[in-house]
């Protein structure tokens, strides 16, 4: 069996602040293969962005610190790398796409100059002319019309969606094996978001890159993910194949997250309570103070281990799924799912039972 | 509907037709207190000019104090500081505690702060109890206490003489100048000068600068254009030469220096405030106030000014040391007020005796240096403490 492209094991990234240690990421494990899209989904404060930043150690140290765990990229331990090796990795074999394309592009240089820089940083041999031609080619591939003339334009001459395309072109400049996309479409309008998501899919097919996508939007997850990791308060709640997760959401948190989505034509139900303190999180399952199915076991010890669900590529960190326990407490009496699959028939028809 | 508790008063029960009287909104304690104090000062001013004989001291008990123009200005300045800087801190202990927590992190600044309180406290109170240093040819070049110089340097040694060395005495703890003025007294009077320069001028600058900056930013359009073009002109205006001109026409006084610099140097502050206020103006709380029907004056006073105050205080913390140095330089060059014993003047007085009587220039120099340094430390820490990004 070959090793996955990216393998994170028991990652713990903490921030040491005046108010105490913020356990932003507290024991996260996930794998990404070549050509695979893994979505890390969670609300603000879930630690999803810190997880992504920890992969190439982009977190500010101090106050941040990777206190435990390993990040193996293509067989090499990133946590043990020197700063120099890391620099070669970032923007080299691992490309980053950020939420705000405005901030990722330097306003005083032309986009061509910036893509060329990205190419030449990691391919020292590339001559200016050659790099320029590659830059034009990249712009063309990410769907910038008339790439040859637009390469000498400045970032402000492009729209938000176009800027995000340019950022993607820059991330692709070094032919990366892995793309880390942190909320790449959150700042964009829905019609543009769809364009960018399709572009990412297309890029992935063409280059066989692995993608780690950080998002809060379950709709985006359903659109692009192969596998999903649901995070809450620095811990993984549930992970697995995207179809498994949406058809058979098992962790009470995942289910609650799906139930509070607006516009489904069904009643939205809010998750009561609020996020736990990051400096002194509750014992046991991090979600238990807000969980409607919490029992005594949820409140003690550590976060439950990942228990397999239905033998598939699907695991959940919930005591009700421990072998021998009764998952129907969460899933309902008939064991069928009440949430995810209800949308399989589509939202266009009026549900017969909806009032 | 439930809700039988006593404190309840519901918004839907308000009869607005009852409340449409316009007029001054009720004064806050702060403004009322300030206005009342100003009134008292104004009465005293009238008393001083109308009742008290021209040259006589204004007060004779508990101490004799002939209040000068500059003193009046200082009193008003201090009142302003008390009501608009100290009172809000007292009124809002949560915010004050947060600032203090942040400020405390910088040890050097805390030490500097204590030092400055000492210097300025002494400068404020000292001159009320200590007479001005006077000429005394019999006590020239006395060394500071615990030190000694060859008797030949000193005209008449006030202290004990042994082995041809004149020793300092407690009568002149920091020695005397070539004119026999006690350096200790001079330094204390110099503190008063630094206090006046470092407080009154920045306050004038801040008040005008903030008013112009916020009004320009909020009003925009032609008002902004006119105010900022005026600032451009003022920034090219040679204040230094204006001061020289007035100096030759009317003689140099500290009052003149302070007022001239106060009313001609607020341009850069106004610009700074304007750019900050332009950003603040875009915040939604400004729009919220507007959509609630608040007037332009209300929005500027209640939202814009408080929210640019960090910039203003930062700016002031840079202004104060530079103004103090400026005054010292003026006095050193002999362009200051000859009747006021400022640090610069004493340094200047001792510069020809630096070989034999080093303490004359050095001691006020050390005070000047440490004061400016301490001000910079405090300024730095204030900037960090007030930085809104530090707010959690």
């Amino acid at each position: 069996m070959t090793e996955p492209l990216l393998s994170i094991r028991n990652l713990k990234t903490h921030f040491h602040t005046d108010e105490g240690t913020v356990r932003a990421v507290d024991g996260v494990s996930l794998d990404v293969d070549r050509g695979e899209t893994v979505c890390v989904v969670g609300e603000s404060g879930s630690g999803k962005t810190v997880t992504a930043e920890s992969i190439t150690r982009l977190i500010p140290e101090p106050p941040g610190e990777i206190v435990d765990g390993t990040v193996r990229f293509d067989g090499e331990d990133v946590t043990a790398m020197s700063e120099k090796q890391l620099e070669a990795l970032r923007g080299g074999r691992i490309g980053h796409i950020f939420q705000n394309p405005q901030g990722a592009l330097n306003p005083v240089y032309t986009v061509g100059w910036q893509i060329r820089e990205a190419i030449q940083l990691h391919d020292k041999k590339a001559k200016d002319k050659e790099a320029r031609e590659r830059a034009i080619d990249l712009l063309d591939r990410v769907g910038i019309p008339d790439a040859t003339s637009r390469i000498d334009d400045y970032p402000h001459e492009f729209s938000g969606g176009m800027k995000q395309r340019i950022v993607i072109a820059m991330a692709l400049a070094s032919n990366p094996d892995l793309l880390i996309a942190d909320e790449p479409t959150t700042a964009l309008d829905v019609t543009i978001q769809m364009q960018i998501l399709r572009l990412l899919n297309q890029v992935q097919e063409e280059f066989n890159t692995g993608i780690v996508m950080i998002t809060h939007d379950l709709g985006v997850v359903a659109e692009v993910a192969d596998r999903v990791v649901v995070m809450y308060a620095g811990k993984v709640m549930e992970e697995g194949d995207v179809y498994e997760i949406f058809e058979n959401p098992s962790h009470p948190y995942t289910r609650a997250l799906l139930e509070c989505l607006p516009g489904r034509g069904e009643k939205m139900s809010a998750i009561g309570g609020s996020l736990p303190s990051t400096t002194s999180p509750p014992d046991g399952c991090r979600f238990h103070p807000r969980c409607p199915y919490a029992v005594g076991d949820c409140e003690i010890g550590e976060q439950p281990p990942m228990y397999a669900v239905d033998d598939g590529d699907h695991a959940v960190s919930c005591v009700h799924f421990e072998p021998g326990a009764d998952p129907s407490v969460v899933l309902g009496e008939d064991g069928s799912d009440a949430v995810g699959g209800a949308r399989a028939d589509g939202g266009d028809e009026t549900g017969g039972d909806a009032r | 509907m439930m809700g039988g508790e006593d404190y309840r008063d519901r918004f839907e029960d308000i009869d607005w037709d009852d409340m449409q009287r316009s007029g001054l909104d009720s004064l806050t304690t702060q403004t009322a207190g300030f206005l009342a104090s100003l009134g008292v000062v104004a009465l005293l001013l009238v008393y001083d000019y109308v009742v008290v004989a021209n040259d006589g001291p204004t007060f004779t008990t508990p101490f004799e104090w002939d209040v000068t123009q500059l003193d009046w200005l200082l009193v008003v300045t201090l009142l302003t500081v008390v009501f608009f800087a100290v009172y809000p801190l007292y009124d809002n202990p949560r915010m004050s505690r947060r600032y203090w927590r942040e400020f405390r992190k910088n040890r050097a600044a805390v030490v500097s702060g204590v030092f400055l309180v000492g210097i300025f406290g002494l400068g404020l109170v000292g001159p009320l109890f200590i007479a001005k240093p006077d000429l005394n040819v019999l006590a020239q070049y006395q060394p500071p206490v615990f030190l000694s110089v060859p008797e030949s340097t000193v005209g008449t040694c006030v202290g004990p003489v042994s082995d041809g060395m004149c020793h300092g005495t407690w009568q002149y703890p920091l020695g005397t100048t070539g004119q026999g003025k006690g350096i200790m007294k001079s330094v204390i009077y110099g503190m008063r000068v630094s206090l006046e320069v470092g407080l009154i001028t920045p306050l004038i600058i801040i008040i005008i600068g903030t008013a112009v900056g916020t009004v320009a930013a909020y009003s925009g359009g032609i008002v902004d254009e006119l105010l900022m073009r005026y600032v451009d002109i003022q920034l090219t205006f040679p204040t230094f030469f204006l001061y020289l001109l007035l100096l030759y026409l009317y003689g140099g006084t500290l009052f003149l220096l302070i007022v001239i610099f106060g009313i001609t140097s607020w341009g850069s502050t106004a610009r700074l405030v304007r750019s900050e206020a332009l950003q603040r103006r875009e915040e939604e709380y400004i729009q919220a106030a507007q959509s609630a029907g608040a007037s332009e004056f209300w929005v500027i006073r209640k939202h814009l000014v408080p929210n640019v105050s960090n910039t203003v205080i930062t700016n002031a913390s840079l202004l104060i040391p530079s103004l103090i140095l400026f005054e010292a330089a003026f006095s050193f060059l002999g362009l200051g007020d000859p009747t006021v014993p400022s640090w610069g003047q004493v340094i200047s007085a001792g510069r020809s005796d630096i070989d034999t009587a080093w303490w004359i220039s050095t001691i006020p120099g050390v005070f000047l240096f440490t004061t400016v340094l301490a001000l910079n430390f405090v300024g730095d820490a204030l900037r960090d403490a007030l930085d809104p990004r530090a707010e959690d």
Partner: protein
Amino acid sequence: MSSDAPLLEVRNLKKHYPITEGVLKRQVGNVRAVDGISFAVERGETVGLVGESGCGKSTAATSLLRLEEPTDGEVLFEGRDITEYDKKELKRFRREAQMIFQDPTSSFDPRMSVGESVAEPLTVHGMRDRERRRRIVKDLLERVGLSADDIDRYPHEFSGGQKQRIGLARALVLNPKLIVADEPVSALDVSIQAEILSLMKDVQTEFGLGMLFISHDLSVVREICDRVAVMYLGEIVEFAATDELFENPQHPYTRALLSSIPQPDPTKRGSAVELSGDVPSPSNPPSGCRFHTRCPEVIPPEGYDFEQKTWRSVMDLRVRLGRDGVNAEAVREFVASESGQEPESVPADRVRAEIRREFDIPEELSDPRAEEVLSTALRHLANDEQAEGRELLAEEFETVCESSAPELRRTPAGHVASCHLVSEAESNAVSTPSTGD
């Protein structure tokens, strides 16, 4: 109130911003942020205003509250035009219409306790009794789900959702008749959105408020609105009851917008209609129907037989020619760098093929007459005769979507929509729209 007039009626509202140039501020054009919109909000009703960024929805809000002076049009509040209010009446109006803002952080003055912020409107409108203000605010804070003790806390001590509750309290404190909410939940986590939306609903029902709800998020709009107006480039393109709009959207833009929302269901992946291009600039909006530059259902020219998708591609080429133009030199250079040739030696047919590739136009159109027009035009383009190419295409491939602006009209489905397809359906009384010829 005996008046039968709607609570708020907007008639042909326009807000244009001048574009100025140079030191003398010479006006060189207009950004037509809001360009003639009309709708009404009844008491107790929530009307949604949706659209992408830059469509003018927020400008519409500030103009109809007269926080900015509208350029043209009428805004009738209880039957009286607010653009003609004098100072006193305007102040009264400020009491009766309130706003809720998007960013819970920026909408509170960080230097005021939330109690002071909520009480501010009371003070502004002349309530001098400080204790009474505090009593009212305490009561109100409890009613929006916070504690009365929160009155002296500062904004940064609250979470985004709590701040939005306080924002609602501030909007309510003057007992308004109309609330304009500008993206009130888009800055919140999805798990918080539900709470705030249901609170807003409750409040609205309890006080019979009229509410204008502005959002880019159709799913949120679906939760809370009774009727929805869809805006595109400063105009309303469709206006209908919420259920109607979602189940039977009439305007192609509404359809595209609806299908662009990613569904939380991986089995429906890839079903979205992808809109080509960006939203054009409101300073120079497209002629005719403003959506024709991106519309997937843009009507083909008469007399030619086009496949809809191909026609869209040809239309994309036309749109580009009309705006930035197609630079044959740059295309030649691009082909040269791809194939390793010198730009001068690139044959013209390669340039033409490259243009077709870039616009996704097939190598040969199915209709030979259309193909002839297109290839002639491409030949012009390859020879650097842009104007000729552009004019030929514009003349031959003229579409009604570009030449005339559709009126807002009532559709058979009971919506109001502005689209030539819709009006066709009505006049022919045929339910299957014919897009072929």
